[in-house]
């Protein structure tokens, strides 16, 4: 039980620190909005085209925004050697990782939930009637991004070119999850029911989350403790 208690404490600590400074949140949110804006200039899409690219557009924005949050996740602990203190504390590596994941997840989902209405307004896409299946996709896709991203945030935290290495390593690994999330989002926004082909993508997304969560929990101790 102490595992979950520790994880929640770490998550609460991270969220508290983040909400006081809002440095990752502000950067990530404004970056996401700027990209949403840029896409409309870049493609100037018609209503029909917008529906076809909506999933891809949204998830690229989320992946970019996610990289900013994930970069900060462990980098924040570098000052005053907080990371060493965390590793030395009686919290297990897996609990530390889970806590960080939950905090990153909460931040990224918050950014996504702000982006979604903005996207709906700018691109004239109706999404409210599909909110619950969309939320499910958001949560599953974001979990995939955060679970892989948090491991690599821990791994790249002491590297040269940290800001560059994280997305370079993580985006190719995320391709299956992003692909599934993009297909699901595009399908849902186009009015398809959550059935047939879409459930296949949903299964893929769930499978990805399970496999990589297990792998991350198994390997994170090695990454953090050595």
């Amino acid at each position, binding site marked *: 039980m102490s595992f979950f208690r520790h994880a929640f404490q770490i998550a609460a600590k991270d969220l508290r620190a983040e909400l006081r400074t809002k440095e990752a949140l502000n950067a990530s949110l404004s970056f996401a909005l700027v990209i949403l804006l840029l896409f409309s200039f870049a493609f100037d899409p018609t209503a029909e085209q917008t529906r076809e690219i909506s999933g891809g557009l949204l998830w690229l924005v989320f992946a970019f925004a996610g990289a900013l949050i994930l970069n900060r996740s462990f980098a924040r602990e570098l000052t005053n050697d907080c990371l060493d203190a965390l590793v030395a504390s009686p919290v297990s590596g897996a609990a530390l990782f889970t806590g960080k994941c939950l905090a990153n997840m909460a931040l990224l989902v918050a950014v996504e939930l702000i982006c979604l209405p903005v996207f709906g307004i700018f691109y004239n896409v109706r999404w409210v009637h599909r909110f619950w299946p969309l939320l499910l996709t958001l949560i599953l896709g974001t979990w995939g991004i955060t679970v892989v991203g948090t*491991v690599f945030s821990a791994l*790249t935290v002491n*590297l040269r070119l940290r800001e560059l290495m994280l997305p370079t390593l993580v985006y*190719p690994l995320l391709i299956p999850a992003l692909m599934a999330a993009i297909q699901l989002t595009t399908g849902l926004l186009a009015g398809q029911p959550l059935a047939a082909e879409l459930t296949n993508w949903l299964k*893929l997304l769930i499978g990805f989350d399970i496999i990589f969560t297990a792998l991350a929990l198994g390997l994170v101790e090695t990454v953090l403790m*050595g």
Partner: protein
Amino acid sequence: MKDKLLYAACLLAAWLVLANLSVILLVLPDEAEQGAIYRIIFFHVPAAWSAFLGFLLAALASVAYLVKRNLWFDALAVSVTEVGLVFSIVNLITGMIWGRIIWGIWWTWDARLTSMLVCALLYAGYLMLRRAVEEPAQRAKFSAVFSIFAFIDVPIVWFSIQWWRTQHPQPVFRGGGSMDPAMYKMMFANWVPLLLLFAVLSAVRLRQERARSEIDALRREAHAL
């Protein structure tokens, strides 16, 4: 002694390729539908097998490193990854040449092509990651973790896009069976020299990696003094 073995393996590989080429170019007829270009398959497919063999060995060596913490396994992992990456690029390029002739396009976002490209990208990322870490034990640990992640990812990419209709010819193992037995056998026959080349390149690279870590250790020692 070891050098002679490597040279002998190189010569054997060269001789086998020449022998195979004489059969491929002079004995085997043009394929009924594709004409002469089909011959690229004798390099295209064995290169893919060699690449996957390299990535499999890299994943196994990475697990072995994390268990044993012996830098030899790390050196092995980076050697086979590099050689595997080269073979995967050979596979991609030969495939693109074939695609240009048969499909009229260099590239299409099809299951096979995409998963192989993702594979190459991931392992290129692996090599980048190695360059970004200075400390040898830490570099070995991080790259082993990444190698395991990468090896799990590629089959998922492959299965995820299998649901799209695929342009790439069906695999020769399952179903298909439309390939002439002489051509089918030649694909395996030509894998032998490529495997020999794979082994030689990996061995040379492994030795180089060991020498580099020895030099590195000596330099550190000199620094400490």
